[in-house]
């Protein structure tokens, strides 16, 4: 089946403005969008640039906008789009370096700002620290995050201000705040209790819809907001 791939193009060395290129590709219904991009790069236009690695939705390299929504190119099959016209654009809200490659620096800066590591200075036991399956389940959902940025760059609040810490960072914070073994939860809540912290989230749910790991992002944010509001982590 022939599909038309419309791809956002921008080469910083020669272009002033971005433009779109169209490629007609012979695709199987079960092909990933990433397969199509690889095909274009291999056989039609080698200059097309994008990031990718694992090709099965687990490394988080290839977040792009496909037909208007943030997705991993390797996790969308042609058949699920139900359309023979496929538009691929870079994710919104981050500077475009080249074609589909964006500058992720501010995204990772936000990640770094929430103490994104386990803190517990009490001397550890000889064996493992115990944690019940229920306590584990409390934060399990948010441990799945692969830092792909699909969520943050789908959020209208992030589009309007880059300073907004963004759902991905809050998800990371949530993973630690609700871990019964961690001890820096209060500090993280203090960081998120900020004009550019949780209060820029207006429960728009674009993030939850965009998350390729099916993390309930808005719920995680909601739990953080609640913890801040009532001063308790349950």
């Amino acid at each position, binding site marked *: 089946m022939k599909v038309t791939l419309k791809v956002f193009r921008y080469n910083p060395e020669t272009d002033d403005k971005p433009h779109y290129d169209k490629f007609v590709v012979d695709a199987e219904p079960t092909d990933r969008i990433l397969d199509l991009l690889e095909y274009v790069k291999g056989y039609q236009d*080698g200059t097309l640039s994008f990031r990718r690695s*694992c090709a*099965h939705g*687990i490394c988080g390299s290839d977040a792009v906008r496909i037909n208007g929504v943030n997705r991993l190119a390797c996790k969308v099959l042609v058949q699920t789009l139900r359309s023979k016209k496929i538009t691929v654009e870079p994710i919104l809200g981050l500077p475009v370096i080249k074609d589909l*490659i964006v500058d992720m620096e501010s995204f990772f800066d936000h990640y770094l700002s929430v103490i*994104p590591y386990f803190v517990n200075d009490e001397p*550890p036991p000889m*064996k493992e620290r115990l944690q019940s399956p229920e306590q584990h389940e409390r934060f399990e959902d948010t441990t799945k995050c692969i830092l792909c940025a699909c969520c943050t760059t789908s959020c209208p609040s992030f589009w309007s201000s880059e300073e907004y810490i963004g759902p991905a960072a809050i998800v990371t914070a949530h993973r630690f705040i609700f871990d019964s073994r961690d001890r820096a939860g209060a500090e993280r809540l203090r960081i998120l209790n900020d004009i550019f912290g949780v209060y820029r989230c207006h429960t728009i749910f674009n993030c939850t819809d965009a998350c390729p790991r099916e993390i309930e992002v808005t719920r995680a944010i909601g739990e953080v907001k609640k913890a801040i509001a009532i001063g308790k982590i349950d």
Partner: protein
Amino acid sequence: MNNYHQYDIIVVGAGGAGLMSALYASKKASTAVLSKLYPTRSHTGTAQGGVGAALGNIEEDHPEWHTFDTVKGSDYLGDQDAIEFMCSKAVPIVYELEHMGLPFSRTPDGTIAQRPFGGHTNNITGMPVPRACYSADRTGHMILQTLYQQCIKQNVRFYDEFQVLDVLIENGVTAGVVAIELATGELHVFHAKAVIFATGGHGRVWEITSNAYTYSGDGVAITLRRGIPAEDMEFFQFHPTGIYKMGILITEGVRGEGGVLINDEGERFMNTYAPTVKDLASRDIVSRAMYLEMRDGRGINGKRYMYLDMRPETVNKYAAEDGRKRPDGSPYIVTGEEMLSKLPDIVDFARTYLGVDPVTQPMPVQPTAHYAMGGIPTDMYGRVVIDAENTVLPGMYAAGEVGCVSAHGANRLGTNSLLDILVFGKYAGLDAVEYSHKTGFETLPAEPLEFTQQQLEELRSSKGDERASDIGEEMKSVMNDYVGVFRTEDGMSKAVEKVRQLKERFKQVQLGDTSRIFNTELISNWELGNLLDLAEVTAVSALARKESRGAHAREDFPKRDDENWMSHTLVWMRDGKVELDYKPVVITKFEPMERVY
């Protein structure tokens, strides 16, 4: 000099092995980590099933049993001192990870949960033992995230999206590396006392593979070009259960949780091939069994795939047949929800890529190229050794999949790779620190960039009319057909010849992209060059080994031959020619025996 950096220790690669060594190295020496991917994109993140350690949280278990299983799994090609070292460090290192906050799944008592995996057995009964410590089916993801987070905590210096293209060796001593900054296209020199390579494997040599696009064997290719040999390259593991046609991995944990492989006649065929542990035999054996079934026309609908069935009714049926029990003694009965909660990502993969719901339908699977047992030869402390006498190349280290200690011999057991990257990553880091405290900086070569620039120039200036993607496709398909699960003299000779032709044609590849910023085409062509080199040394090493052992199965030499082949292959590329040598296997406690499961 612009773009000149100096650190005591340079770690190349930010997967599990790289981060673990950086964590230890940076405590006592100035350290920088160079990675062509943002660290959390590394392949360690895709590992699913678990990391092996004899914690005995569920059933009785001992590091000694783990050692023996690994030796046996390696088909007696593993160096037993290294294996014993790795298995004895397994328990403390898993606790260490837990203390770093790694969110392991838990048993009802709150300890780390464990599940059975192929080849891990109770040495007394011979039955499978739950030894894989897991975090649902994203153990590697959690390891990668946790280690990266700890590196952040420790302020490790990262150079993300810096691809190393060359290692500098001056006067027989390591002096640093050359890397390209992808965002600008500029070359950088990193001057260092010690360099730790942790660049992962090269599964992209094969067509059906579970490996990432970026798994192009950069580390081995770079060192080969610098006269360092590669070890045991013929041993490449094919994992039995990759998604049909795509190769995406379905973890062995599925079988650990009770899933079984089914042929076209609807029977569980592993009974015949491994009567005791059945579907949980080691990977080489299961992959071969699948091939034999398919060859005899018992692939599903006569095609080249089998079913992997984890529907609760199937699992319960065979668990009852095997008499499998829960730790509390009750019979092993699972529900759909339990499978979903223990293997969420597998269910997701099957739904996304196959359109199959594994809780109600079986999944079509076929063997998929998975793991490089071979690599840069090292000793137990990650020090790179460059000949059959184990002479150390000062300052040069390798750890993780890129290295060959050899703890996996001819066939790696599931869960032992995550263990390998942790243990050998850590000790490489520690040894590098010690080394860097003892020595000064070696002077850089007069023109450190020369060799790199020459390589890139060749890629840029070629005016031929070949297409890199064609060459890549042909290489992958020939390697899949002739240097895959089963091998013959004839096939492998064809493969060697074909790969050499492809290498010639590769010189005629034209580069379309002339830009500097993120020239991904230039990089992927360079990577294809690496893959071609590795394909060649793999095929040549395989052709020379006239026996069947572990992952190397020859139809013309179906038996293991301990008399002549109890040795590691070393392979060099000198002036474009491949040379071979052999070194003996270290045997301490376990004399080679026939391998039955």
